[in-house]
């Protein structure tokens, strides 16, 4: 990537961040809603720690992984709704008339989304620490957690960008929220997979990629440097990012051709 392309990417990424920052609902909701669900689950499911084989005595620590994944999801939906609005209002078409390369548009958008998600992750981490959670992987684990969050956000962001570019509709991107939400709830978010009693649900959670993202974050919090689980989380995030990026790039070419 040339220096010019880098400048253009930074400018578009900054625009994505600033635009989100100017809409309080897009900032506050992704911060507060995962924390509310975290509070509800941490309080309501604390009794789970009394199950034989439960991996920790602290359900707060166990549940802390969920806001990281859910926050990335919310951030990417909100920001991609704005991206779709750019398409609806014709901003993308006008941008396509400038010397900015198509791929830079995508990099800029994704860069902005990832920045927002990482800022949120720092907030969730601070809340967790304030509530007495201590990362078993230490300070290095916190850095790894933020790196993992970057990859998770990139995965969701690329899939969301694909939806925005493919449909050019804010409603369609908003419609992704329930889909992602289903993936979140049908995962191991509330209980370790080996403790899920219903066979069919354990199978669903096992084939659900979101389980591996949550478990990788959770490993850094409650287990420590469990490289297999962490590596699996990174691999799933990378695979989703690759698929999403390929789809988004293809949709972008199609859209620019039509311009």
């Amino acid at each position: 990537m040339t220096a010019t392309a880098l400048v253009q990417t930074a400018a578009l990424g900054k625009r994505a961040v600033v635009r989100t920052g100017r809409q309080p609902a897009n900032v506050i909701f992704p911060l507060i809603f995962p924390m509310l669900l975290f509070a509800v689950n941490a309080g309501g499911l604390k009794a789970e720690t009394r199950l034989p084989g439960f991996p920790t005595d602290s359900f707060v620590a166990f549940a802390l992984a969920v806001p990281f994944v859910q926050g990335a999801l919310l951030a990417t939906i909100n920001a991609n709704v704005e991206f779709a609005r750019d398409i609806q209002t014709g901003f993308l078409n006008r941008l396509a008339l400038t010397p900015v390369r198509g791929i830079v548009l995508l990099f800029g958008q994704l860069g902005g989304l990832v920045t927002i998600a990482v800022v949120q992750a720092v907030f969730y981490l601070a809340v967790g620490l304030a509530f007495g959670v201590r990362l078993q992987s230490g300070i290095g684990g916190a850095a790894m957690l933020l790196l993992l969050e970057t990859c998770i956000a990139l995965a969701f962001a690329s899939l969301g960008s694909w939806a925005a570019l493919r449909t050019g509709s804010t409603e369609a991107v908003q419609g992704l929220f329930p889909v992602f939400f289903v993936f979140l709830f049908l995962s191991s978010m509330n209980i370790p997979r080996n403790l899920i009693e219903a066979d069919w649900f354990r199978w669903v959670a096992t084939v659900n990629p979101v389980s591996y993202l949550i478990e990788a974050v959770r490993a850094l919090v409650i287990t420590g440097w469990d490289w297999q689980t962490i590596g699996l989380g990174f691999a799933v995030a990378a695979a989703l990012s690759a698929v999403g990026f390929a789809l988004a790039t293809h949709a972008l070419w199609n859209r620019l051709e039509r311009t």
Partner: protein
Amino acid sequence: MTDAISVARGVSWRVLHTFFTNKAFLLPSVAFPLFFFTAFVGGLSRITQVPGFDFPTGYTSFQFVFVLLQSAAFAGVFTGFGIARDFESGFMRRLMLAAPNRRGILLGYVVSALVRWATVAVVVTIVALLAQMKVGGGGVDLFGLYTLALLLNLAGTLWATGVAMRLRTQQAAPVMQMPVFLLLFFAPVYVPLNLLQGWIHGVASVNPITALLEAGRGFISGSPELTVAAFAIAAGLIVGFAAWAVRGLRRAEAAG
């Protein structure tokens, strides 16, 4: 009164026609309760092995009551979204000009919310029975359970209507939704109240929805408890939110 009923009939027909003919409205209303039911029952059934969890008819019926009450409250909230949408599109202004009795507008939305919820309740109940939910209560108990849910639906609708009439924008959706979400989830959702510990136990103990949830679970297990308290709370919510909704209507009228 005849005027109000004819207005209510027109409003409710329009809302229900939109609801049943537009998949974007129908599917989420039905899918979300089913999805919560599936996720909670499938994922968390092991929790019945926690010492002290002694609900007699099993985790499926334990969660069914929560999902039924949740679907009732949210059918009301979704109706509020529709009212806000009608304000934004300008339809409500025309409706207010045309309606000879504007309380009929409120009545129409309330009736449509009841029908919406009844549809969802039928689907959720069928799915729960297919999932081999055990029912310990008799006919009277089940009548009590569904009546309780119906009253909560009424309260939820009146709450959301009051908000929609005051703010008159779809951006008010979180204001309608979030308090209902919090009240529902700060109750004993996953385990009985006696198994909650710490701050959530304190919050759930004073949360009015807890009584409704426990009464509903009492009905389905055939051991009714907190029945009078639950119906009194539901009645109180309805009276309070009815006043809230009517005053909201007056504000909307005053705003033109």
